[in-house]
């Protein structure tokens, strides 16, 4: 480590003002502080500081995303091999089979991750240099979230365009990490959804190779459970015909078609446990999203006016992006509500809105993304009223003492 440190100290002057690579200053600094916590000391105020910093905060989120990512890779392979008939739904898993599926998925997903990071970090480094800032760690999380909410068959150039859009218009125009209004990863998905709708909806895109359709067996359907439900709603059916006879157990484990990282409620729960144990994500938001979704689902159950209203409310928590959105997207501290009371309202509304969109709108089966984006926009308003209440309470003391 000493040698590495000496080497960095030796080349550092090249990146300072007036040096040969002055234009790469932010990039150098990003890599240097990644390798070594800087030797900066406190100047004024508190002379000692807590050991927590932004790098560690973001790293915890990345670690919490790993279960969903690893399972997602496995599931990409599993769905593919089921689609071509290599693996029957009844086949029992052994290590060889799991590895076989995982490796296939790994090779499919890795390019998407690489494109997302290279494009996103490239833009971040550029903006940091132009602004004379340090590179923020926020994109470490965004760069992994984007692949996880994409369908596996998405063209790579589309990932690149969506990422660039999300980083530039979702974040940098507002002033960078900490200033953005919308969750950049969701913005990337929304961008693909509205710009290239066929590539992120329907029954083909969620399973690797299904878009091309070569060698797919007849009995396999690439529809997600949410699409099944939406179809039933659109056709006015009274019961939902679940593709590939999937059951809530399958939805919980995640062995169903869907966006890369969002299928497994179990893997997401492991991530949630990491986030809640470390305190990095807000339990208030997670809990209230679940309560909001479940609560409004029960209300719709009581009404029972269409086939989705009669679907048990708890199904909503397992299918689609509900769990993923609850754990990783709604809890984004920058774009979510910032006061404790605000967080509860914000979460309740996300859950309620997501289920409402699902239940009432057969055109777009997944309500979670729109619900979170909408509440991202409303979060400052919620906080405004919470803070105003505080101001009023404090001013009331004024009246009491004046009297």
């Amino acid at each position, binding site marked *: *480590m000493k040698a*590495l*440190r000496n080497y960095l100290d030796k080349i550092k002057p090249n990146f300072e003002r007036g040096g040969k690579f002055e234009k790469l200053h932010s990039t150098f600094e990003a890599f240097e*502080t*990644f*390798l*070594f*916590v*800087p*030797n*900066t*000391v*406190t*100047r*004024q*105020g*508190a*002379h*000692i*500081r*807590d*050991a*927590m*910093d*932004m*790098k*560690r*905060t973001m*790293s*915890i989120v990345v670690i919490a995303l790993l279960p969903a990512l690893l399972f997602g890779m496995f599931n990409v392979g599993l769905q593919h091999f089921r689609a071509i008939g290599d693996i029957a739904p009844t086949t029992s898993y052994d290590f060889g089979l799991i590895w076989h599926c995982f490796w296939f998925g790994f090779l499919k997903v890795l390019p998407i991750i690489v494109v997302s990071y290279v494009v996103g970090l490239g833009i971040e480094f550029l903006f940091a240099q132009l602004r004379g800032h*340090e590179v*923020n760690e*926020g994109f470490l999380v965004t760069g992994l979230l984007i692949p996880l909410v994409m369908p596996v068959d998405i063209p790579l150039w589309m990932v690149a365009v969506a990422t660039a859009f999300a980083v530039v218009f979702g974040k940098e125009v507002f*002033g*960078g*990490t*900490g*200033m953005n209004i919308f969750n950049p990863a969701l913005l990337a998905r929304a961008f693909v959804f509205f710009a290239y709708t066929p590539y992120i909806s329907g029954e083909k895109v969620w399973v690797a190779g299904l878009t091309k359709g070569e060698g797919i067996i007849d009995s396999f359907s690439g529809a997600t459970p949410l699409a099944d439900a939406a179809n039933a709603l659109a056709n006015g059916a009274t019961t939902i015909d679940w593709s590939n006879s999937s059951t809530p157990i399958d939805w919980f484990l995640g062995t169903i078609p869907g966006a890369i990282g969002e299928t497994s409620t179990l893997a997401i729960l492991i991530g949630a446990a990491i986030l809640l*144990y*470390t*305190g*990095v994500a*807000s339990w*208030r938001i997670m809990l209230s999203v679940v309560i909001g979704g479940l609560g409004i689902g029960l209300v719709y159950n009581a009404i029972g006016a269409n086939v989705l209203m009669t679907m048990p409310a708890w199904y909503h928590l397992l299918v689609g992006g509900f769990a993923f959105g609850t754990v990783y997207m709604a809890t984004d*501290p*920058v774009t*979510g509500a*910032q*006061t*404790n009371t605000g*967080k509860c309202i914000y979460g309740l509304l996300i859950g309620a809105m997501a289920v409402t969109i699902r239940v009432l709108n057969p055109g777009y089966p997944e309500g979670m993304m729109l619900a979170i984006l909408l509440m991202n926009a409303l979060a400052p308003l919620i906080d405004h009223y919470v*803070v105003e209440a*505080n*101001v009023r*309470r*404090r*001013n009331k*003391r*004024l009246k009491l*003492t004046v009297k």
Partner: protein
Amino acid sequence: MSNVIRLKKGLDIKLEGTAQKQVSPLPRAESYAVKPDDFKGFTPKLLVKQDDAVKAGTPLLFDKYRPEIVVTSPVSGKVAAINRGEKRRILEVVVVPDGETEYESYDMAPLKNLSKNDVTSLMLSSGLWCFLIQRPYGIIADPGQNPKAVFISGFDSAPLAPDMNFVLRNEADNLNAGIEALSKLTTGKVHIGLHADDEAGVTGKVRGAQFHYFKGPHPAGNVGVQIHHVDPIVKGDVVWTMDIQNVAILGRFFRTGKVDMSRTIAVTGSEVIAPRYHSVIGGASIRSIIGGNVRPQMEGYAVRIISGNVLTGTKVEENGYMGFYSNQITVIPEGNKYEFLGWIAPRFSKFSVSRSYFSWLTPNKTYNLDTNMNGSERPFVVTGLYDRYLPMDIYPMYLLKAILAEDLEKMENLGIYEVIEEDLALCEFVDPSKTEMQAIVRRGIDQMLKELN
């Protein structure tokens, strides 16, 4: 002690180097100094020049805008140097003491015969007025005002802070006299905030003050927190505060007629060989206090000397001087070292309130923390964290953002009248974005003072 105010928010940071409860004698310092930067709301103008002879209590500086407020010499001797910084700003007025301390004399009468005006003018001419700090804003009080109350915090809850009951164990009479003097300055009450366990100590037996008991982690001992829970400051209110050891010095002045700035300070911190208490005269040189009592450092390593505690104190050099208001000197290691992949390492020796470290498993362990920032400055990202370290009905992040946006009305609404730097010190400590919150608060206060007065 019927109603104890229990505070849940806050944090006790346990550090190595608690002072042993023994007072060790120290030889007299070779020099003493007053540092204008210690006095908030005070624009210094010199009253002496180099080589002038002064007594203990002779005015050295006065305030440009409130000329009746003066800062006086803690010892008798000769003005040895007037050290200036950039733009000829006065940094230190150094006095080298002579053999026997000579004191300025004052026209003193028994305290019970003194009026509010008598007390005020005696405190002003002796320089002890500077002990009186006004809230809002944490500046030296304005003699023309009538505060609604005077608040004294009877204990210091900061890391490694001195035990005030030990410091003041022989000062009961002076404390009572000090409180009597203070009670003449207000038409309201003199309040004293005590720790719930302090009832038996000397601070629990003072006369003439209203007692309030607190329980909970730091900053329960901050007078601002105590005011918030007893009688909060709202727009238009003026409250005066005084550090409890300064109350004793004030009482000593009214009992003896001498400006005797002797105080007991705790010398603490992991780099102190023998952490203990010393009796010193305020403004003593750092070398005279800790010389020979600091652990030798390996090559390339250094120590940070702090006049005050690790959260709110001022960095001083070894050839510098203790601060006017300090009851404590702390010495900790400098953290000017790189750490390989530190942001992801388990770092068992580091302290954090985050559970991504393991320090929460060992709540009683004491830590040897250095001055490393442990990260780089970032915009605010995390939420809900700061609220847990400010036991007031205030949203710290919103207040800080209002200050950054220079929005006076919001600052007023969100609580700028109730806080000073020290109240947000813990928020600054825990902040993963490494924002300099105490500096931001002071900037906000300065702006309020500028725009509203």
